[in-house]
């Protein structure tokens, strides 16, 4: 099944590559949108969704417990709608947490796994791959719902304000910031459209599209890895998984995306 899906993706990629040569009256954005539409039927993210759902229900770890009592912000075990209200403040950890860092807390508290060890595990390996699969399933359970992050707790409002400052923070060898590429409407890098993340960029765009399956490298990426790779390309040092900076950035983007419809898990080139 997987080979069929990927084979199909490769064929469509070939078509998309022909697109610009066939006629420049059709914009690159339209071509890419069409290509994504064609892929939606066979998004390999579904495989990760199935894995994530199974992991949620499976008794695991030193405490031999499932994650079914995990509180993602709407009460223990409530999954539907949780994704579009994260990051948010959690009294038990006394932190604003995004989906992935919250999952690690639940794996530690309920299953007895070592959260610090999970956070240090490279993306795509071991328990980190499980966190990504869980996040993919949980996001899928809110597909079609609209972002509405809570901002009632002072720590949530502070996270937004910190996130805004982080978004505009210039540094690295090239003087880049998130805002350098994502601070204005209608900009591109090469042919890649750049969403303006200082406001609601629209349904299923930017924050409302991740986790996503990446066709180009055959990997499932959560928002933590998406931000990690943004910082790599900004020539910054390496952001810790679940660090305050990455969570604050998600709060900033998530609050700005209020009302945007989630299409996660989506598919990207």
């Amino acid at each position, binding site marked *: 099944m997987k080979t069929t899906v990927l084979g199909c993706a490769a064929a469509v990629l070939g078509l998309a590559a022909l697109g610009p040569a066939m006629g420049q009256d059709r914009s690159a954005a339209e071509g890419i949108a069409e290509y994504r539409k064609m892929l939606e039927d066979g998004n390999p993210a579904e495989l990760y969704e199935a894995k994530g759902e199974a992991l949620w229900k499976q008794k695991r770890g030193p405490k031999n417990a499932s994650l079914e009592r995990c509180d993602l912000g709407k009460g223990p075990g409530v999954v539907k709608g949780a994704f579009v209200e994260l990051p948010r403040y959690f009294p038990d950890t006394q932190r604003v947490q995004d989906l992935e860092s919250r999952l690690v807390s639940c794996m530690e508290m309920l299953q007895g796994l070592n959260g610090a060890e999970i956070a240090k595990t490279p993306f795509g390996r071991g328990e980190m791959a499980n966190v990504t699969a869980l996040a993919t399933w949980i996001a899928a359970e809110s597909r079609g719902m609209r972002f509405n992050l809570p901002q009632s707790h002072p720590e949530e409002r502070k996270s937004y*304000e910190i996130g805004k*400052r982080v978004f505009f923070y210039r540094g690295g*060898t090239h003087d880049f910031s998130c805002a350098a590429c994502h601070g204005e409407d209608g900009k591109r890098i090469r042919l890649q459209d750049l969403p303006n993340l200082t406001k609601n960029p629209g349904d299923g765009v930017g924050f409302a599209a991740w986790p996503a399956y990446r066709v180009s490298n055959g990997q499932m990426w959560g928002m933590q890895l998406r931000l990690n790779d943004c910082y*790599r390309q900004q020539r910054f040092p390496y952001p810790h998984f679940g660090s305050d900076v990455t969570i604050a950035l998600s709060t900033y983007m998530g609050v700005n995306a209020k009302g945007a419809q989630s299409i996660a898990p989506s598919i990207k080139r």
Partner: protein
Amino acid sequence: MKHKHLILPALAVAAAAVVTGCATMPSPAELDRETQALMKASFRDQGIAKVDRLNQDLGAAACSSDKEPSDAVAEKIMAEARATVKWPAGGQYFGDWKAGETLAQSGRGSTWTDRADAPNGGNCYNCHQISKQEISFGTIGPSLYNYGKNRGVTDVMAPTAQAVIEYTWSKIYNGKTYNACSNMPRFGHAGLLNEKQMRDLMSLLLDPKSPVNQ
């Protein structure tokens, strides 16, 4: 009666303290300081990308918000940037536009997955239209198609071309020379490109034979 009078104001003060304690956001200056501390705590070295890359000079700090710096600060950033510009040895501003095109195409270098000896690309097409032939270009910076032609450069040795040549060199050397918060990197000042590479980019932009000026 007398006690009541004493107790009520005390309660009111306590209640007010609780309310303000919950509702008050730290001041902008406090949030700025906390952001700096969180930046330091949230990153680690990886490969060639060390945490000292988070350090900010005047320009980086002043251009890290959704508000432009004051005119006075912007002037200071630009004056400092112009003072950094190192002019090419022997007044040799030009090289090979073909090598410049190859450099303009590359967006590689300086990330934590790059080796220390991996050369940096010019990243030019990521943000600019340059030659007409390359349709995969970004739009963060202005189009540079016909850059020399539009500025009346028909002979790079002509004295009339000198002002444009010096401006272009300084812009590549340090993107902040004439725009304090420009998104353009400081290719010469930051050591991203060497003098030879910058000469090749100069030819790409200004040589009348370059595809840019056709």
